[in-house]
């Protein structure tokens, strides 16, 4: 993101902007953009948080009110206890970080093996893994569900267990691709030096490759957590028990019998963790997104 600091020449030249007319036009547009964007992107969130404070009548009042007249913080308390949001949030965290752990261990090991240990058939295996990126995920939902219902050979039924969410996330061709490309850029000399010193492949991975790979591990981790956090259809299918559902499905299935103001308070609570994570790590998240998006 260094391009932001050293401003490149863009559509409109600085010469045009430094003229009086240019300055007026620039600041008018700038103010307009700031106001409109704040309204469009922050406005709904403001409405959500304040909506959670409104009374049952006020939240459906016409015309709507900008500030809650008699703020009712107890809505948040009701939402927290009645919708059992603590439980739903815990489930989501449990699934997200479990998936992260599995992806880090298995995908890193696989990418390291293909990139540095170069086993027989490694290229073909990598090709088969990348080929899965071309299959639209929605198409595989039904056979995947059948697989989880009765695991081939082992005949386990994973429905209702966290494994049904954790294990399929490992089969992520994009992760393997990102990791493998990064490992490829680690000089071969370092590997040789390590093996001459008698380091085992695991040791080399642990003390040489992983410490050098922090940026890519960060990107993969963020994607892993966010993907689980945002997924809807799959967890809805494989976690039918409301006790085990992540926040997306839990709130939706409970939303029917709950007053609107309490529901909105629940939405605000559910949005808080990811928004906080985002504000804390926004630099990493946004640069990871642009780094990993198209060029891979």
């Amino acid at each position: 993101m260094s391009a932001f600091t050293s401003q490149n020449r863009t559509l409109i030249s600085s010469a045009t902007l430094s003229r009086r007319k240019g300055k007026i036009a620039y600041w008018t547009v700038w103010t307009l953009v700031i106001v409109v964007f704040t309204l469009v992107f922050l406005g709904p969130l403001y409405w959500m948080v304040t909506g959670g404070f409104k009374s049952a009548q006020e939240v459906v009042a016409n015309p709507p009110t900008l500030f809650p007249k008699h703020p009712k913080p107890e809505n948040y308390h009701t939402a927290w206890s009645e919708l059992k949001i603590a439980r739903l949030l815990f489930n989501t965290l449990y699934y997200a970080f479990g998936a992260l752990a599995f992806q880090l261990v298995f995908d890193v090991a696989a990418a390291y093996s293909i990139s540095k240990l170069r086993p027989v058939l490694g290229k073909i295996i990598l090709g088969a893994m990348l080929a899965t990126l071309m299959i639209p995920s929605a198409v595989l939902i039904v056979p995947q569900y059948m697989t989880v219902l009765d695991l081939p050979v082992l005949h386990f039924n994973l429905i209702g267990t966290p494994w049904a969410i954790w294990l399929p996330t490992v089969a992520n061709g994009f992760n393997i691709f990102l990791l493998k490309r990064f490992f490829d850029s680690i000089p071969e000399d370092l590997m040789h030096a390590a093996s001459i010193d008698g380091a085992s492949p695991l040791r080399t991975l642990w003390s040489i490759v992983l410490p050098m790979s922090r940026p890519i591990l960060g990107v993969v981790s963020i994607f892993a957590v966010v993907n689980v956090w945002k997924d809807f259809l799959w967890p809805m299918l494989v976690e039918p028990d409301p006790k085990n559902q992540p926040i997306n499905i839990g709130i939706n299935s409970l939303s029917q019998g709950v007053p609107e103001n309490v529901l909105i308070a629940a939405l605000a609570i559910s949005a808080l963790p990811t928004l906080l994570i985002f504000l804390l790590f926004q630099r990493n998240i946004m640069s990871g997104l642009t780094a990993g998006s198209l060029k891979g």
Partner: protein
Amino acid sequence: MAATTVPENTTKRHAGRTSGPGGGAARTGLSRKVRQNLQAHGFLIGALLCFLMFSWYPMIREFIMSFQETKRGTTSWVGFKNLNRVYHDPYFWTAWKNTAEFTLYALVIGFLVPFVVAIVLNELRHARAYLRVLVYLPVMLPPVAGVLLFKYFYNPDYGLFNHILKTLHLPTSQWLDSSHTAMISVVIAATWMSMGGATLIYLAALQNIPGELYEAADLDGAGLLSKIWHVTIPQTRMVLSLMLLLQIVATMQEFTNVFLLTGGNGPENSTMTVVYMVYQYAFRYNNFGSAAALGLFLLLVLAVFSGLYTRLSRNSD
């Protein structure tokens, strides 16, 4: 291996003993190779098993299931019966039409808006970080929060959107409650929630355009629009076309937004997408064979776009 370089010696030794040192070296070399390979495959095994079970096997199974039917616990081959059934489903074309409509709206709104926003953001010199965070904020919401919030805004009686329209003296809308506006309402909500990602990608692409091109265009007396048309768009063409394909593939698999906003069908089946129909076949009617058959149709259509995407992204490397 070393044995071949010194043929004289070894043949003599071979004549004397059955396993000479050359043969021994080859064997330890071989066993080291086997050991290294075993190690390497040991590192692969976890991911490999997951791919096998949750990706490769389901891919094959998708095809098999399309030609099978399970009744009272017994599975039998039924040939093209499933494909035939879904093809003649009265809602087959409705679902495709809705999916196409969603994709079209998503392209007009979800493709154009982030690009325009990126161009504007790229021109601004102040508070850029704030604006970037702002645009990306909704992406981080759990979908249920964004969707149910929009459902509340869309309410025709007390929703915020109709109130805004009314204060601006514009005609109000039934939003999700009318078959005419339900789909576009879904697209607006979906765009709000996800445009941040595309905007940031376009912004990164815009920053890679060499400034000299704009300077040259200025010297030629080009106006703002003609600079966008002749410099900005050609310079970002690769990213634009990749994002276009990516978005087609993604939006044609739409499920979550229509499911949460309109219950899937929508008024008069106006938001029933193909994936929602797959979902219905499988998890409402328990007809997994037909669900797989419908999935196969979707796969065929999307394979074209996926193939194009892979081709383009390989060229761009």
